[in-house]
């Protein structure tokens, strides 16, 4: 169980809950050490101020911690000047996001606005844009004026940072958990009763199975799919290139985003198995009926960390910067984490979540991107021009 705490008066941390102390403090384990501090309950009117004071102090003292503990210092840059209480003009935020977050952010935007108004601010107009993560990053690079980006993988945000300079290179250290307020993994969605008997990755490379997955060039989820298959082959002692080539030979259509693939599989009836975000698979079951599809959990999958960050270069006013920073930080609040869990994301802090929303996630052997050497290495090597994907797709 994860909890967010404020410790040492100037930093936020999120870690595994250990125990509550008598004096209202909570002790958590952040991997390499234990920390204790006040639990952050971001629902009260006063705590927001403390939240922000914590940020600006973190900025002044320069305290930054590696690993799971990340002082939210850099984000404090924009909010330090005004703070939420000073934001008395109505502002707009454009959240450029990837495909499967549509339902989550629709509800989160309402949650955030209610909290934000309770802090004594004017309501924020939040605009949403959704699409394949790669395509969305491309649009931001081409001038789509995103205030915040909430994409499927850090490589896409790295691209924006590198090509426009509107995001600092060390953006991922600005928020806890590598700036990923929620995580997910890749599972299989099959037709009711699993007629093709698909149990694991090696069932996908036989001749009779049609696999639906989006294009790794434009979709973040598709890149996680690719890496999960790769990881399975490596662990099973198979040649990963051959294995993945055989898998993509069974793909009849490459959509540009995850939601496009989901509709191709569920509503147009193409294919025997959809490689899907776990949240996307659960949503398809909820929306289209549990009697139509089954979820199959493979033996190996990836820990997908969809990160969020502020596009500093697109901030036009202090008030907008303050609202946008708070918008991202509030994603780590227990209420927002509960909402993410409700929308089938694996969020960290389960303190406010319905037990059923937490219990439904199966335990999985999850490979992380670090096992592949990190996105800066993986993106060009596997998905860049002439990378592994280009080579196998040419065959």
């Amino acid at each position, binding site marked *: 169980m994860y909890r967010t705490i404020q410790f040492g008066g100037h930093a936020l941390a999120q870690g595994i809950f250990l125990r509550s102390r008598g004096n209202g403090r909570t002790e958590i384990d952040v991997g390499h050490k234990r920390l204790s501090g006040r639990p952050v309950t971001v629902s009260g009117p006063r705590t927001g101020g403390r939240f922000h004071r914590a940020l600006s102090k973190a900025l002044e003292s320069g305290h930054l911690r590696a690993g799971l503990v990340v002082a939210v210092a850099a984000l404090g840059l924009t909010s330090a000047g005004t703070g939420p209480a000073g934001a008395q003009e109505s502002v707009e935020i454009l959240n450029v996001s990837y495909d499967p977050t549509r339902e989550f952010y629709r509800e989160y935007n309402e949650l955030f606005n209610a909290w934000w108004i309770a802090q004594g601010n004017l309501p924020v107009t939040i605009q949403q844009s959704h699409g394949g993560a790669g395509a969305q990053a491309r649009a931001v*690079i081409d*001038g789509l004026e995103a205030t915040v980006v909430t994409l499927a993988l850090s490589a896409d945000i790295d691209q924006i940072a590198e090509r426009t300079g509107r995001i600092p290179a060390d953006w991922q250290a600005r928020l806890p958990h590598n700036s990923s307020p929620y995580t997910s993994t890749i599972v299989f969605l099959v037709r009711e009763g699993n007629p093709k008997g698909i149990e694991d990755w090696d069932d996908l490379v036989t001749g009779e199975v049609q696999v639906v997955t989006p294009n790794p060039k434009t979709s973040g989820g598709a890149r996680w799919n690719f890496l999960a298959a790769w990881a399975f082959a490596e662990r099973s002692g198979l040649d990963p290139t051959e294995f993945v080539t055989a898998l993509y030979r069974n793909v009849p259509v490459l959509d540009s985003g995850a939601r496009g693939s989901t509709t191709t599989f569920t509503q147009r009836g193409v294919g025997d198995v959809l490689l899907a975000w776990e949240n996307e698979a659960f949503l398809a079951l909820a929306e289209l009926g549990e009697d139509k599809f089954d979820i199959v959990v493979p033996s190996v999958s990836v820990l997908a960390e969809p990160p969020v960050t502020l596009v500093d270069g697109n901030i036009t006013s202090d008030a907008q910067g303050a609202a946008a920073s708070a918008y991202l930080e509030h994603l780590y609040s227990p209420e927002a984490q509960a909402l993410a869990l409700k929308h089938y994301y694996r969020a960290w802090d389960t303190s406010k979540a319905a037990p059923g929303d937490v219990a439904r996630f199966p335990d999985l052997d999850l490979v992380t991107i670090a096992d592949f050497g990190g996105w800066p290495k993986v993106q060009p090597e596997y998905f860049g021009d002439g990378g592994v994907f280009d080579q196998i797709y040419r065959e």
Partner: protein
Amino acid sequence: MSDIALSRPVPVTTEPTFARMALIGLAVVFVALFLFAPLVTVFAEALAEGWCGVIAALTLPDARAAIGMTLTIAAIAVPLNAVFGIAAAWAIAKFDFRGKAFLITLIDLPFSVSPVVAGLMLVLLFGANSTLGAWLIANDMRIVFAFPGILLATLFVTFPFVARELIPVMIEQGKAEEEAALTLGASGWRTFLTVTLPNIRWALLYGVLLCNARAMGEFGAVAVISGKIRGQTATMPTMVEMFYNEYLSVAAFSLAAVLAMLALLTLLLKSLLEWRHADLLAATRRH
């Protein structure tokens, strides 16, 4: 009494009865299957939850914004293209100049270029990574991912409709009437208003209707350049796709039904025109 009077007239240009029936049947089945059935499906899906569902869907802020966006775009793009189309057709039909064939080819370009490519061209030209785009953004003029970009994309794809309708009509009519008016002392402007415009009015109206139908229905070019911001840069066709992708099928099909109604209205107007003024149309249209 002759043999000729007894023999029934054998029509030489027609097929036997069964062949005719088969061909007509085939056409009817094809029309029913590929035109009528999809249209009925759109309306049936929209009404899946009754009229209340449709009304609730169409009063969603995003849907209202998309309808407003599409109508605004059409209201600006169609008159502009009517003026551009008349000017282009006038120049091509009434004057001889070098490069005329090239100009005609250029007018046809939007027909042959895929709308997605058209959208991408505009993104590349006005996007943040071009010199022009960077300058525009620095001066706070937003083209791509905003209203002007969508308008430009719509103007581009609907450009040929009016000009293409007018050029053959104007060429066929020749220059004689205008020359007569000019020799009688009429000014150029008066000649246009009293001679040319009345001559081309039916073809013009026809072109405007087609242009309008396309302006409201355009998806590809607009999808590329709109940035897909809900309630802000979404037009009706792109909003239909967004609703559909969000499992909001009643909302998606309600909006699609409104789009279909607008298209049907356009067709109805066109048919009405053709029926009421069949003789005039025959005199001025190329067929």
